[in-house]
């Protein structure tokens, strides 16, 4: 996994991540920082929630699921590729959950090929 350490040291990729994560997590960090001195409130932010680092070998498949605790999720590819598949969602309409069950039905899903620099 030599390419891993090389890419993690790539300051450009890391800086992109910092910017995008700060935007998305603004509500959370604002709330946390403004209440950190309140009675009873935990001072140190627990690790492993705001940010995660994912190492995956080729061929790995994550079956149909949602992310736990009702969280929103973002991901940025540093190196390699991921195919991110979600049921197709026309603008203004809800997800049709039958899309991934029926083969050859003519219905479609959105598949996003994420490559280095891609942010979902």
């Amino acid at each position, binding site marked *: 996994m030599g390419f891993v350490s090389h890419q993690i040291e790539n300051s450009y990729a890391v800086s992109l991540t910092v910017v995008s994560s700060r935007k998305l997590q603004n509500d959370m960090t604002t709330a946390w920082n403004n209440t950190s001195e309140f009675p009873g409130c935990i001072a140190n932010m*627990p690790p492993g*929630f705001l940010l995660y680092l*994912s190492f995956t070998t080729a061929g790995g*498949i994550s079956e149909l699921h949602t992310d736990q*605790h*009702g*969280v929103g*999720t973002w991901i940025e590819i540093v190196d390699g*590729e991921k195919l991110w598949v979600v049921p197709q969602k026309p603008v203004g309409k809800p*997800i049709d959950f039958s899309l991934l069950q029926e083969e050859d039905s003519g219905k479609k899903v959105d598949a996003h090929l994420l490559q280095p620099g891609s942010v979902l």
Partner: protein
Amino acid sequence: MPPGTLHTVVTTKDCVAIGGHFYSGHQFGLVAWARMIESVHGNFWTNPPNHNGEIFLQRMFIYAVAMIVGFFKSDPDIDNPSHQNLVNSPYPLASLGHLAIMCEFPENFLIQSGVPQQDQFYSSTEFENAMQEWKSFKEEEEDRKRGMTVELARQRIATRYASIQLRDHILSQIEQEQGPAWLCLRERIENANVVNSIRRSIEDERKGLFRVLYSNDDELLLYLSQVPDEEPIICGQGHSCMSDAMAKLIERARVLDIGSSKLATTASSPSQNRKRDHSIVNQYPEKRSKYP
């Protein structure tokens, strides 16, 4: 991705990625919706557990209450009544109502593991006892038994305190306010639990105020709340897991005898029952765009 988005991922090449999770103050309705589904299907449905989500929800709730009630003494106009108002909420009121429910009754959103069981918990005396115990500030003792940290227990109590502050504040000022969103928020907090929130969600949806069930689409939520005359949109119902989850949620309400027939028909045929009460909607047209 917004909360509750179904997805599957295939890694086509060895991959390194950086990512993160977040809560948006505008999407707690979707968070509650996703967590209700999780509470039925547990780890069948979602990623491996991350137990820190509740901590952040509590902190966002405490922050919202602090903004509303006026905990921040650094505010130079803290004595100004307009600064001690729900208008100061950092999140939309509909979203704040869902956050309040999640923080007020965290037990209702616990994730069940393994095969989904017949859910009789909400109709049992065990449920009533658990609620009573929770209201008696026994979290700290219980959390220690479960091996949770003392810090988390303390924060839960702080969250409870914030909840009481918010409830008192709303009840004292609610009569001065107008608009269906205010009334719905009051009712949600007064009668907060999962069953009531489901019922309220359906009723609100029929009034054209909110849309919580059948959708994890924030654009649609905004759309339905702002265009009362548009034809209702029919939702897909093909996914068996989702259908089972909805049936389970409806069964909870039926067991408690909360408008069961109305709930069942509304849930199974949303397109036939989503006639909105325009008299209510049009009564406060200027307010609607503020509370998507």
